[in-house]
């Protein structure tokens, strides 16, 4: 962390709830989302498989191609003939898949042909005229179906539906079992859900004949990787592909892998002499755009009678569906939170990535860590019950202590800072925990079932992107970094371009706060262009909005570039004022001499020297005022099975929840929801609060409402928001927030991850509360979602949810 006295010349903006400068355009309806761009486009509609698993024997597009208004049609076999297969990242078995299905379809909704027409209505009409002969194959839907010896294979070349199976051991796990008084064992099941950004995927592609190059506008969340992947898949040099990302209507990970559709659009754009646009429908989005995998986790905690956990053993089966690009990462990323907040000295984790005929999976908010904290925090409550301990007490007995910071977990993850016991104490106080317990006892007498749930979680950020090569051993990406360009314009105002994108986090505001305090100007004088343009923006292969990396490496790059520009302005000012740089100060857009206030020069005058009166610049100094910097997190290790870190900052939180369960209807109503979290220093606390609450509601949606339900043939039954139910304002609690501020020593501003955290801690907190409410009925919670139907059935019959 930097010395703020050195870094900032004023302290007017950083740490304050500064109004978001993005919001004026949004509240006026002047956002510039992809579908809003004023371009004359032909429209694309995509024909999708109606079977979960089938061979495609014949596709006849002749009737569609002949339809009036149709400009072009492309089919899977044609696409496969012109592109390279999708490159896998984490799986170790061979599995060949193209951006459009050619010989075989592997999920309901997989693209097999696409039409461009004069408008979308005509394009949709034309889809009805495409004739496909399928030879249906038995569908593999559930994990246990995929693992059967005689299971149909998704990928023949893999000779198995298990595309990754790796076991990593750290510490002396055998000894942990030998020394244990008891072993808590449980099998958990977490269903499929997604954060479903309100804006579906959207993109426009244009082909320029003269240069044989493409421009794509898309609401892409990781443009750095998309540029690499699209060019690689199309086999074109990078300089033939330009990607522009305007405003994006939410991401949450679900827009991290939209690039396969860019490939399809580029091929179509090349066929017609105008830009082509594809706007995903919600049904398309829910079918295949995309999901978090459902999973089964077998967890064991060898422990002492006093509640001390000696080790953790886990077998994690991830139903990764049928998208080889991201299959396998949900298991590996769990290492970022494998031991949670606890002093667990030995771990064994077996991770399996299972291919099935469900839809594609990509990184959904938290990526595997919500599940990890769910199973661990559920197991903590199960252990507490067995040992007769209060759920808070068993956690206090196992927390990593503040004096152990920075703490390295058995696998090599580094927890930088934090005070986990204090975080729980604060949350208990804020929730009036002891009062809640009294209230619970009172309500039980009246036949009402109040439950209290606690969850303590780690909320990691900044992915060390080598992690998913831990099993493959061939790093193509390692570490994490971002780029920024900071300039001073003719008027002496600052402008900033970053290599990343914004999907609603208020990056432009936050960047302006930091730059303002570094240069001593107000945020109105700092313009930040959120629109990424791969021709201009300083992106890397990692660039994008994911893993809460913004306030680490994105701001790191902005700070480094601003330092450069500040130093250059000071050099020019020192020359102009005939002073020493050491005597100069910045204030309100002016540089002045601390020794003589009358000696001063404005940013505008410095800009005039840099851009116009260049012969008055100091000898040897380059003209111009624009600086570029890249910044990488310093803590990333190379992937190595013995010692690796998956993520590079680690926030933490405690959720305390009280719910009342109606045991007749199974309905769950919130009575209290307290979140105390510690993400280090905060640049804009109002933005952090908003993301903490929003993220928690993603978790609540996953716990209570949302589920991708498949039938045994692999048909998705929840294809609208009528049956894939999202949380609405009614029924949600008023969240009470508490904050702690343990600065991260390894980020420039002492910030840690903010954004995904609530989605991680909320699953277990709610589940623990529901189990507590139902304790008079002996109900145990081992699976999600906690739908009314499952709750009632558990109370009356099964005793297990």
């Amino acid at each position: 962390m930097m010395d703020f006295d050195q870094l900032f010349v004023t302290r007017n903006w950083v740490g304050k709830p500064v109004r978001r400068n993005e919001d004026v355009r949004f509240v006026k309806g002047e956002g510039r989302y992809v579908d809003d761009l004023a371009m004359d486009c032909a429209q694309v509609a995509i024909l999708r498989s109606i079977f979960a698993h089938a061979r495609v024997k014949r596709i006849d597009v002749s009737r569609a191609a002949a339809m009036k208004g149709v400009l072009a049609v492309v089919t899977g076999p044609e696409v496969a003939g012109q592109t390279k297969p999708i490159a896998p990242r984490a799986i170790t078995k061979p599995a060949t898949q193209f951006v459009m299905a050619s010989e075989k379809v592997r999920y309901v909704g997989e693209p097999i042909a696409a039409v461009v027409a004069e408008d979308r209505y005509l394009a949709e009409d034309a889809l009805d005229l495409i004739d496909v002969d399928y030879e249906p194959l038995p569908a593999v839907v559930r994990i246990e179906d995929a693992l059967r010896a005689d299971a149909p294979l998704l990928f023949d070349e893999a000779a198995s539906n298990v595309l990754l199976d790796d076991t990593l051991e750290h510490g002396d796990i055998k000894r942990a079992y030998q020394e244990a008084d008891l072993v808590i064992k449980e099998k958990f099941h977490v269903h499929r859900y997604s954060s479903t950004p309100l804006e579906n995927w959207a993109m426009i592609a244009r082909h320029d004949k003269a240069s044989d190059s493409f421009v794509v506008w898309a609401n892409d969340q990781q443009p750095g990787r998309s540029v690499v992947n699209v060019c690689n898949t199309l086999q074109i040099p990078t300089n033939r592909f330009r990607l522009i990302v305007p405003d994006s209507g939410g991401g949450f990970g679900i827009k991290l892998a939209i690039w396969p559709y860019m490939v399809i659009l580029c091929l179509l754009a090349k066929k017609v002499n105008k830009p082509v646009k594809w706007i995903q429908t919600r049904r398309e989005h829910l079918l295949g755009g995309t999901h978090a995998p459902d999973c089964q986790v077998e967890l064991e905690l060898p422990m002492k009678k006093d509640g001390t956990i000696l080790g953790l053993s886990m077998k994690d089966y991830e139903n990764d569906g049928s998208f080889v690009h991201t299959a396998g990462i949900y298991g590996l990323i769990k290492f970022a939170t494998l031991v949670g907040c606890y002093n667990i000295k030995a771990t064994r984790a077996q991770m399996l990535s299972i291919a099935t005929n469900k839809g594609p999976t990509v990184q959904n908010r938290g990526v595997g860590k919500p599940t990890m904290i769910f199973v661990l925090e559920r197991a903590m409550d199960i252990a507490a019950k067995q040992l007769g301990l209060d759920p808070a007490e068993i956690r206090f007995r196992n927390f990593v202590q503040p004096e152990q910071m920075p703490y390295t977990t058995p696998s090599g993850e580094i927890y930088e800072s934090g005070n986990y016991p204090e975080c729980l104490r604060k949350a208990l106080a804020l929730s009036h925990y002891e009062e809640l317990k009294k209230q619970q006892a009172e309500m039980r007498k009246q036949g009402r079932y109040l439950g209290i749930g606690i969850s303590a979680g780690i909320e990691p950020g900044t992915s060390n992107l080598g992690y998913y090569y831990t099993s493959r051993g061939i790093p193509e990406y390692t570490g994490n970094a971002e780029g920024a360009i900071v300039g001073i314009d003719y008027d002496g105002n600052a402008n900033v371009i970053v290599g990343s994108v914004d999907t609603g986090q208020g990056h432009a505001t936050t960047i302006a706060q930091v730059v303002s305090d570094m240069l001593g100007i107000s945020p109105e004088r700092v313009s930040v262009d959120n629109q990424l343009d791969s021709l201009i923006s300083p992106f890397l292969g990692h660039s994008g909005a994911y893993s809460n990396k913004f306030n680490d490496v994105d701001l790191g790059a902005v700070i480094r570039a601003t330092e450069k520009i500040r130093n250059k302005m000071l050099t020019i000012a020192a020359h102009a004022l005939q002073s020493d740089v050491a005597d100069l100060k910045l204030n309100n857009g002016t540089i002045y001499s601390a020794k003589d206030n009358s000696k001063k020069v404005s940013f505008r005058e410095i800009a005039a020297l840099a851009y116009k009166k260049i012969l008055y610049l100091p000898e040897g100094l380059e003209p111009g005022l624009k600086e570029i910097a890249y910044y990488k997190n310093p803590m990333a290790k190379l992937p190595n099975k013995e010692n690796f870190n998956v993520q590079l900052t680690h926030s933490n939180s405690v959720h305390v929840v009280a719910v009342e369960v109606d045991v007749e209807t199974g309905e769950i109503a919130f009575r209290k929801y307290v979140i105390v979290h510690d993400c280090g220093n905060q640049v804009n606390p109002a933005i952090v609060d908003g993301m903490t609450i929003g993220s928690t509601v993603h978790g609540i949606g996953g716990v209570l409402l949302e589920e991708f339900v498949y039938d045994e043939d692999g048909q998705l039954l929840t294809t609208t928001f009528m049956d894939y139910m999202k949380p609405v304002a009614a029924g949600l609690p008023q969240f009470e927030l508490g904050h702690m501020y343990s600065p991260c020593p390894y980020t420039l501003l002492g910030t840690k991850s903010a954004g995904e955290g609530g989605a991680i801690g909320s699953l277990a907190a709610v589940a623990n509360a529901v189990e507590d409410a139902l304790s008079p009925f002996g109900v145990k919670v081992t699976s999600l979602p906690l739908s009314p139907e499952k709750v009632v059935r558990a109370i009356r019959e099964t005793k297990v949810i």
Partner: protein
Amino acid sequence: MHRIKVTINGKEYEQEVEPRLLLVHFIREKARLTGTHVGCDTGNCGACTILFNGKLIKSCLTLAVQANHAQITTIEGLAANGLHPVQDAFLEKFGLQCGYCTPGMILNACYLLQSNPQPSEAEIREALEGNLCMCTGYQHIIDAIRYAAERMKQSGTVQL
């Protein structure tokens, strides 16, 4: 094809449209008012919320031909100059993140405050039932609507 005449934000649009054209597509593509968004196609998300002859409706569930002779207000028509108090309240209370649901949310809030100038938290939550926000968890949106109600009461603002 049908010729329809629709007044949107005080301006008249006369066009030939297919009977199957959705009103939201008429607003976005024919009138080129892109503040009205599409989020779900099935009337569940409220991103396409507009005021139709003074009533709150979802323009993805309405055909353009049904809007013949209608008076429509979209987010672009809310404030002729500057910001409506509800828009300003969303800014002040951080009532948005990605901004995609915001036009529908704001129109819904304006409609609510017109009939119920001092709604309780529960009444606001109830009123927002048909508008989904995937980013905020609604809390800051509710704060914004309460703040707007308070400000409008103080200033005696007449909505819409």
